[in-house]
């Protein structure tokens, strides 16, 4: 039986193998991984002190709020965006796709009976799964040390919405970056485009500050963009800032953005392959 026939008959076996190989690949550097995760919280230390100083100036007795956030909530917000980012960030995804287009490596997906997006998605899922297993320790430690910044656990409904928003933020992050990578079919060199994306992502996803702080038209624009689901939205859901009808709308819109980027990545891949001329080796 050829491999082709094998995959036809056992499509799941193929995908399971891909996932298992990726998992094993990722587990090789687990020590470095855990240390890296813990270190990633270090910049938060300066943020905690910075906001401490800002809130000192705003309200002497700790009652002051900024854009509806108390000091406690602000710190909790920054901690929670680390969780959102753990789901939505896709380091190197778009640049890898663009590089594979440029050096011709992408050919292998065109001849082998493997779907490029499916293959990459499984690779990322494996990466994330290993990441959560290894990062659970450092995350638990940091959240335990900072437990005083939280008002206990949110109710069940909020938790369910939080988990749903995180899973969708993973999918949104993946398909958004994959679409950007596909631009490589047209431009070959996409590093400037990726820098612009990184810049906007950093400031307008809520990673740097809660987007509730943005005034007027800026706030409206940013709230209409899909970026907010990559960091701000899940954190705000957990803190109970978004509830009831707003929450349902938010989750619905997040889902819609995921669908939009699934389609966009498929369409750009489809048309990209048509104009692809297999440069490189």
């Amino acid at each position, binding site marked *: 039986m050829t491999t082709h026939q094998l995959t036809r008959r056992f499509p799941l076996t193929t995908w399971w193998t891909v996932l298992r190989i990726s998992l094993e690949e990722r587990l090789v550097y687990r020590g*470095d991984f855990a*240390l*890296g995760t813990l*270190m990633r919280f*270090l*910049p938060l*230390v*300066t943020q905690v*002190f*910075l906001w*401490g*100083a*800002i809130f*000192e*100036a*705003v309200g*002497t007795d700790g009652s002051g709020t*900024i*854009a509806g956030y108390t000091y406690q909530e602000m710190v909790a917000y920054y901690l929670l965006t680390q969780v959102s980012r753990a789901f939505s960030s896709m380091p190197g995804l778009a640049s890898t796709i663009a590089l594979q287009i440029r050096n011709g490596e992408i050919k292998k997906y065109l001849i082998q009976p493997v779907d490029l997006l499916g293959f990459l998605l499984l690779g990322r899922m494996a990466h994330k799964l290993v990441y959560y297993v290894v990062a659970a320790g450092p995350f638990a430690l940091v959240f335990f040390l900072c437990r005083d910044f939280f008002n206990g656990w949110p109710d069940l409904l909020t938790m369910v919405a939080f988990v749903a928003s995180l899973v969708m933020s993973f999918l949104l992050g993946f398909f958004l970056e994959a679409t950007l990578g596909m631009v490589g079919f047209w431009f070959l060199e996409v590093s*400037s485009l990726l*820098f*612009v994306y990184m*810049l906007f992502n*950093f*400031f307008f996803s809520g990673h*740097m*500050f809660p987007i509730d*702080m*943005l*005034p007027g038209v800026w706030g409206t624009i940013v709230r209409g963009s899909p970026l907010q689901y990559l960091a701000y939205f899940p954190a705000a859901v957990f803190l109970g800032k978004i509830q009831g009808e707003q929450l349902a709308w938010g989750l619905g819109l997040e889902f819609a953005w995921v669908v939009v980027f699934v389609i966009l990545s498929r369409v750009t891949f489809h048309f990209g392959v048509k104009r692809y001329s297999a440069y490189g080796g």
Partner: protein
Amino acid sequence: MIDTTANEARAGQGGEAVANVHPSYLGVFLTFARNSLVRDMTFRANFIIETVSSLSWMAMNLGYYMLIFRFTSSIGRNTGWGEYEFFVFLATTLVVNSIVQAFFMPNCEEFSELIRTGGLDFALLKPIDTQFLISLQKIDWASLSNLLFAIGLLAFSLAHLPAWPTAVQILLYPLYIACGVAIMYSLMITLSATSVWLGRNQTLYDFWFYITNFSRYPMEIYHGTVGSPLRIFFTYIIPVLVVVNVPAQLLAKPLEAQSWPLAVFALFAAAASLWTSRQIFRRAMLSYRSASS
């Protein structure tokens, strides 16, 4: 290019002549600067894109702090870091960072790689101080656009302060900027020299970023049971807190009696950092085993 040819000609005269060569450090540095500029100008579009990208990064950062000052009038209570004082602080951070990025960052990055690949052999053979050679070989001219942005921001913020700085303040400012750059450089070269022992030092830049992150805010924000030890550690053990704080205080806040000891300490910290990093660099060179060359 003429300098290089001349050096080669002199080197060609035999081993004895090489030993007697006393390179002009300034001349070599200027050649490095010119070569880097030539290289940057060869890819002009790329240079422009890099400049625009880093400037937009600066602008976004400035926007973030402008946003914060919509909600508060100062960073910390009674610390004296109001909006324009803080912008002087921010401009100082950008000045120091852009100098470090333009002159040392690309080189230290390269240094770790030279150690790993054995390419350092070629640097060791050259008749010039190895630390000088590997520290200044490349200059990233695009980063100097950030310096212009920072100076612009500095002038703008100073104009909004109640009083213009005095001549003494203006004269001392570049001195303390130099101290700050020296401390940052020492830290960076020390971190990259550790590649000799660690083989590969991938988390080097993460580590650099995480440590220098502490220098980005006024030291007054670190207080309390966790903050005070952090402040002491990053002032006296790894002196990244004096890098920006001392020059920024000097300009933004009237010279206060209690800030003088820190200013004197900054001079000492800069000298000590340079000396320590030099010692570590030498040790690293002694342990270098020219792997895979």
